């Protein structure tokens, strides 16, 4: 079983639209949406949830007012400024480290379990989708990503799937690291803009740090042909495969509005490109053992 993760560094380069098209093309696979704090893949895949679980990660401090003497020791100990001068816990700032609870001379702090979100196993027209929803203003996105990736492996094993397709999140932080670790191949979706190139380089460095094989897809390639040339030069020098170039088009948005993947929506240059991209990715996945 192979794991293919789609990332970009910069947001809005087309990760999810491309992931959805790959989902339409690949056979025997399971999809995972690891952009847990702004998940969008379900808007195209229209999942029907067959299993749902609450996600508990981390703790939250709670002050027992009957025991608290307002000595203020916890305020000084808290590294997150989560305790006010009137000894009230700020639920958003508290990271659940339990330092206040351990050192409170009155034993007045209790650590409680915190629900950070929920995750789902769903059926879609392209197979199983594992996705999640992080609670509003919650942390622990990396742990939730790890949780749903583990579940996807379980489902893939159960269904004899050959591939797990992972839609990543923007950036290079905690959830991205959790999304790429141990993957067989990362597809970086970039575009010929100064910002996207800057961000793609950083996420490429991240894949190198974790020794994840990588290839690149240039979306909106005809927006700036000079910069597209620069991306290709960079890939040539770094020996990174360019699996495809997709033109600047409104079709992704039009397909999205119809809740379709581009493969289902149209049958032209863009979809031909996407089919070629999938064929190349499939080949690379199967040759990297």
């Amino acid at each position: 079983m192979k794991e293919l993760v789609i990332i970009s560094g910069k947001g809005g380069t087309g990760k999810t639209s491309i992931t959805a098209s790959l989902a339409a093309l690949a056979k025997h696979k399971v999809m995972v949406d690891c952009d847990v704090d702004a998940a969008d893949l379900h808007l195209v895949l229209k999942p029907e949830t067959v299993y749902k679980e609450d996600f508990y990660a981390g703790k939250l401090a709670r002050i027992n007012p009957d025991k608290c003497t307002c000595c203020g020791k916890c305020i000084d100990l808290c590294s997150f400024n989560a305790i006010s001068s009137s000894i009230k816990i700020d639920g958003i700032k508290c990271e659940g480290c339990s330092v206040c609870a351990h050192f409170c001379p009155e034993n007045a702090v209790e650590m409680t379990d915190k629900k950070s979100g929920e995750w789902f196993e769903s059926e879609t027209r392209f197979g199983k989708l594992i996705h999640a929803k992080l609670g509003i203003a919650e942390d622990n996105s990396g742990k939730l990503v790890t949780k749903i990736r583990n579940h996807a492996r379980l489902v893939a094993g159960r269904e004899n799937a050959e591939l797990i397709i992972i839609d990543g999140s923007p950036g290079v932080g905690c959830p991205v690291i959790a999304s790429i670790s141990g993957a067989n191949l990362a597809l970086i979706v970039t575009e010929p803009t100064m910002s996207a190139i800057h961000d793609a380089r950083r996420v490429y460095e991240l894949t190198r740090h974790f020794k994840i094989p990588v290839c690149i897809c240039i979306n909106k390639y005809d927006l700036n042909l000079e910069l597209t040339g620069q991306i290709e030069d960079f890939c040539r020098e770094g020996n990174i495969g360019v699996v495809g170039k997709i033109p600047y088009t409104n079709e992704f948005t039009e397909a999205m509005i119809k809740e379709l993947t581009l493969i289902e929506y149209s049958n032209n240059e863009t979809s031909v490109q996407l089919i070629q991209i999938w064929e190349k990715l499939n080949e690379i996945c199967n040759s990297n053992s």
Partner: protein
Amino acid sequence: MKIAIASGKGGTGKSTLAVNLAYLLSKMNKNVCLLDCDVEEPNCHIFLKPEIKSTQKIFLPVPEADNEKCTGCGKCTEICQFNSLALIKNSIMVFPELCHNCGGCWRICSEKALVKAQKEIGEVQEAKSGNLHFIHGKTKIAEPMSPPLINAVKEKGNSADVEIIDCPPGTSCPMIAAIEGADYVILVTEPTPFGLYDLKLAVDVVKKLKFNAGIVINKSSYNDHLIEDFAAKKNMEILAKIPDDKKIAEYYSTGGIIIEKIPEYKEIFENLNERISNNKR
């Protein structure tokens, strides 16, 4: 006044808005401070091309083990809620990438076998051109946690007339850290199903945290009704619309400031500025 520019979805135009607004205000002779708090992928400098005047490395306290002193009591692994310590025989292994820097372990260790050490998490850079003060942060690659660096960028913010905070995408801890303390939050979206869905999440955040906020539609098109219907339902103002114009996308790709190159769009930003000024709390 502190204006945070945020969005649930990435790539909707946060940095474009932040840069052009900061540029406009600086040309109106206001003292502006632009804080690029998207420290995982900061981009504002690409457009402003500021001459960096100072660079400061940012460190966080993490434990360091002195295993000569460790008696293997295991108290540190008990207090650590983040699995960043492991006890193997009488020896402590530290995983600093998992550490949340709470200080529990070195406080609880009675043998002083864990001491407070420093880990570099990234850097903060400053520049000044005319009355535009620019500050951004950049995480070190493979450093998972960005909120402490975001806070370091924000601490450098000065008492400018206007502080503009360019936030990271999403709705989780980095975004929360960036918008904290803002007087007004601009949520940038695009009129697509993805844009709408992620806007809803971002609106949930600003409502929950009781921020004063408005919406800007970027890549405005015949689909604007998607956003307008939602905004009306939530009683939120559409502050501005930036058209879906390939000219903008092309000029953006080169790293340019839109209102400098395409003056007809200057008015959009002037009106936006007026609307925010009327809305501040």
